[in-house]
């Protein structure tokens, strides 16, 4: 397995699956991923509310492929085997 981060593009050679490419897309605020197993996906940053009684700013957030609702964390866990649960503090929703 080889990992390269270049020009904001993370290239991950992960045998036997193949090569994953993950990169930021600032114009539309997305992270794009290309998986040799499941193809390309565009992930938006989504704050997941955990109910009305949840304290503001404590809700989970993840990069979500809005077309099917899957998350980048999920894909990395399933295909690469890394656990990215809550790796960072989410940005509070602007509308609150």
């Amino acid at each position, binding site marked *: *397995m*080889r*990992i*390269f*981060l*270049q*020009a*904001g593009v*993370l290239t*991950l050679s992960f*045998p036997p699956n193949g090569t994953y490419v*993950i990169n*930021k897309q*600032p*114009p539309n*605020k997305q*992270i794009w991923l290309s998986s040799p197993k499941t193809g390309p996906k565009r992930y*938006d*940053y*989504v*704050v*997941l*509310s955990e109910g009305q009684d949840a304290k503001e700013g404590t809700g989970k*957030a*993840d*990069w*979500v492929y*809005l077309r*099917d*609702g*899957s*998350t*980048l964390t*999920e894909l*990395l866990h399933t295909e*690469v*085997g*890394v*656990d*990215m649960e809550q*790796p*960072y503090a*989410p*940005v509070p*929703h*602007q*509308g609150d």
Partner: protein
Amino acid sequence: MQGEAWEKADAGLKMGASKRKCGVAPSSDLNHFNCNIRLIPAHKPSIPSQSIVLQPSHSFYDTIYAIMTRGALSKLVRGSRTSIRPLASQSSSAAIRASMLRPAILPIAMHVSRASSIQGPRFFSSTRPSLKGLSPESENPQPTPREPEHNVTESVSGPADITIEQFHEVADAYLEALIEKLEELQEETEEVDVEYSVCPLFFPMLLWRN
């Protein structure tokens, strides 16, 4: 000897009843008890063949054992082929009452739900055996399938309304965390090479946007 046996039976009755937390009247007024009764034919030469002795069980304290001789058991079965009803209210059990039971035991009502015909010395119990789930052949309940995690996010309407600075903040944090995790994975598998380089080509794009 009979007096001693009855004392043991009385103690056993109280003991079993208290273990099962069912109400038992004082020994002078034993009218009903609802404990499970297991009738065990046993050969006790010291106990007269025409008596029933209730004894506490040493292995199953929640069950009261009625130990009787083979002859008494066969009489009991002959007298009540279908079921053993509460003796106090069973009019046809006069023969059993007279031949098997001492007057002190008479008021005790035995509720045995299933007392089919018995051939030879064998056990019968009012408790239905429940072996479900104990043997490999029995029904094995399947665990409920775990719902995919992305079902949680399906209710989300759209992406968070974040600024471009916040996007870079959270995206960089995510990618850095990912690289960190991959490096950990690399250390575990020892087949991974991690190279990290910051490319300046990214910044002209930012300048171009601004």
